[in-house]
């Protein structure tokens, strides 16, 4: 099965040419780049042999059944799970999932990708963003930690860090201090045994050889990270910086930006299910969504709910109006679960904020006008798509958004995360829309040439068998890596009574 574009990004690598643009799209382990003036190039991750070492079977976040990772999986080239273009469009940051790697590329003017660095993180990166004028990457991981890394590792780092790690190692050489005297309970006796065992074992993990500062952490899988700058209170004061992190346990945390990221300013509390996406509107309000029936608009500086907006109702209405789709509710509408897969700030409409929202496995784009302060946010438009949306990107020139590109799952039936399509019903992997004068979005054919070029190249590669998606991994019940990248959000929902 050919892999759709799990991520798309559009940018302008040439600051002097406001008419050209570059479209980047990831399909499995490959990143395609296509320039508006013609020309496509491809980069692919390599099969990695180094990570074939057995992974320690003890990652307490994983349920017991999952513990032993198949080293086989590591032999496939790792799949791209995130793409992020720096704000100056000079670099692309890509995350590859299976090898937990942050990869940085230089984007040249023609759109070619030049790989510059590759850093394997301790845990799988779940969300990334750039701060400090593109100088620093913030990486939020599956274990709940947020690291800051320089965009490019400096070559001297590796040596400095190796020395520092060695010093720490020798100074903190381990003396088991839980002696038979202090060990009084069965629990501690067990701990002492473990401790002695550990001392005999060689270190399983090497320290990372590149600069990475731990800024903050949740004890929960992180799903999203954002960064914001706000004018200081006094005139002439430096702008205040904030980091927003969201997790699987319904939390949205607001911390100060570095160097004070250890200070938590507050929590935006109101979700009952996981939070998967955060978005700052153009006027600066926070909009969050996840496994709940509502999106929430926040006055985040005071951690107050401004407004709740149903996302479930528009999804229900859409599915009822399109009964041909696989996911249409049959019996009880109450059972329908929505999982927000994307929220994007769109240009304001009638001088009010507006956002575009997608839900996992729902072939539509929901356009909301947001006015949380007056509590009059509303659905402006529902745009039907030719398949399930996987990602979305906006091309902006100054305040004007020229178009959006949505990547479409051409493999699965619209409305379903698992059912395959009929062979004769394979749409293009992307759809483009532009903003009409009435404030609504319309399909546009303006980009067709570029989109089609990219689509047919990916299709050709798929036919060559380069990009077969492994649909049926050896461990039943576990999603294939690609399935997890494409449809991993509903999976964040907790199952009642799982473990006690």
């Amino acid at each position, binding site marked *: 099965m050919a892999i759709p574009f799990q991520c798309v990004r559009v940018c302008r690598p040439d600051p002097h040419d406001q008419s050209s643009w570059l479209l980047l799209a990831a399909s499995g382990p490959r990143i395609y780049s296509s320039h508006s003036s013609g020309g496509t190039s491809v980069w692919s991750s390599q099969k990695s042999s180094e990570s074939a070492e057995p992974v320690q079977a003890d990652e307490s976040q994983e349920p017991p059944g999952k513990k032993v990772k198949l080293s086989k999986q590591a032999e496939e080239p790792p799949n791209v799970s995130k793409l992020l273009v720096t704000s100056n469009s000079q670099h692309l940051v890509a995350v590859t999932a299976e090898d937990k790697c942050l990869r940085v590329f230089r984007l040249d003017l023609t759109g070619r990708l030049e790989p510059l660095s590759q850093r394997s993180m301790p845990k799988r990166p779940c969300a990334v963003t750039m701060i400090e004028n593109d100088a620093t990457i913030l990486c939020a991981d599956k274990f709940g930690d947020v690291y800051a890394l320089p965009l490019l590792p400096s070559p001297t780092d590796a040596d400095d860090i190796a020395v520092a790690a060695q010093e720490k190692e020798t100074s903190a050489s381990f*003396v088991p201090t*839980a002696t038979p005297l202090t060990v009084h309970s069965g629990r501690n006796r067990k*701990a002492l045994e473990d401790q002695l065992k550990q001392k005999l074992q060689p270190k399983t993990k090497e320290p990372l050889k590149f600069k990475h500062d*731990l800024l903050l952490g949740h004890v929960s899988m992180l799903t999203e990270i954002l960064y914001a700058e706000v004018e200081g209170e006094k005139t002439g004061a430096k702008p205040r910086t904030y980091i927003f992190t969201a997790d699987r346990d319904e939390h949205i945390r607001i911390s100060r930006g570095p160097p004070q990221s*250890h*200070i938590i300013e507050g929590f935006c509390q109101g979700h009952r299910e996981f939070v998967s996406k955060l978005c700052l509107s153009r006027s600066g309000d926070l909009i969050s969504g996840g496994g709940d029936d509502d999106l929430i608009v926040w006055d985040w500086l005071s951690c107050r709910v401004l407004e709740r907006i149903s996302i479930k109702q528009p999804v229900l209405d859409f599915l009822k109006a399109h009964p041909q789709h696989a996911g249409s509710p049959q019996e009880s509408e109450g059972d329908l679960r929505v999982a927000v897969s994307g929220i994007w700030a769109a240009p304001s409409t009638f001088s009010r904020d507006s956002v575009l929202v997608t839900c996992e496995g729902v072939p539509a784009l929901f356009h909301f006008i947001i006015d949380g302060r007056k509590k009059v946010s509303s659905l402006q438009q529902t745009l039907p798509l030719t398949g399930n949306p996987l990602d979305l990107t906006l091309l902006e020139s100054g305040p004007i958004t020229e178009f959006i590109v949505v990547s479409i799952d051409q493999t699965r039936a619209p409305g379903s995360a698992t059912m395959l399509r009929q062979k004769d019903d394979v749409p293009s992997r992307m759809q483009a829309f532009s903003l009409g004068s009435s404030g609504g979005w319309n399909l546009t054919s303006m980009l067709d040439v570029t989109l089609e070029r990219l689509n047919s190249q990916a299709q050709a590669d798929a036919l060559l068998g380069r990009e077969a998606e492994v649909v049926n991994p050896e461990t039943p019940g576990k999603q294939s890596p690609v399935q997890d990248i494409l449809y991993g959000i509903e999976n964040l929902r907790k199952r009642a009574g799982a473990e006690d």
Partner: protein
Amino acid sequence: MPGAPKKRQKREEYKESLSKDDQNGALPKKKFYRQRAHANPFSDHSLTYPKSPSDMDWASYYPAYAAKSDESEATVTQAPTEEDASRQITRPVEIADIGCGYGGLLFALAPKFPDTLLVGMEIRISVCEFVQEKIRALRHQSLATNTYQNVACIRANTMKFLPNFFAKAQLSKIFLCFPDPHFKARKHKARIVSSTLNSEYAYVLRPGGIVYTITDVEDLHKWMVEHFEAHPSFERVGEVEQEGDMCVEVMRTETEEGKKVGRNGGRKFVACFRRVEDPPWP
């Protein structure tokens, strides 16, 4: 230790007999409440927790402090949210014992802080039930003096949900007594003290508030000292001040673990840390 069916049945019969006899001042028996020592702080326990501190039904834990509906508007610390159906209390909880076990510290501190609300937080369900039963019994025994009305125990995974229970700067004291050591290097993230979790303790503590730690495992003591001292929101409390604090003595002698260690002639390592004011924005 899920126990043989027979044992489980006995437990259930026992607990039922307790609940039937609500006016009973008899203390609960520990043997019916023991539970496997470790609970995984990362897993999805079927825990219940409030969305936010103002959604917490505190009044059912501290009935003597329940706000009358007309005064609740004026006295609650948190502005109630729109759909706020929870019942509030007339003063906020100020002292939290994290991983309180069988509650020895709470029962010793409660009479010493008669005007302050204390809460124990425990992840193991039966251990938490034991403490709740004991509170019920002690309250009943001391109806005349009204002691123990200021103490409660809630089941919670504090490593994930502390900010769901407490607002910013709400607490004046946090106790971390004989925490599970988690020796393995890979399990450091499972420890109750870490550079990232310390930010959450700093969040719920008011400036000037104190984190109290005690352990019999010297390495864990060093670990806690290293991580609190390295955290810019905390400073270590000096020896003289520490030894002058009556809570320190109570912590040494009244926690169940503290007693056990004492019986074995083991050592107890104490360290306390003060929450400092946040620096101005850079």
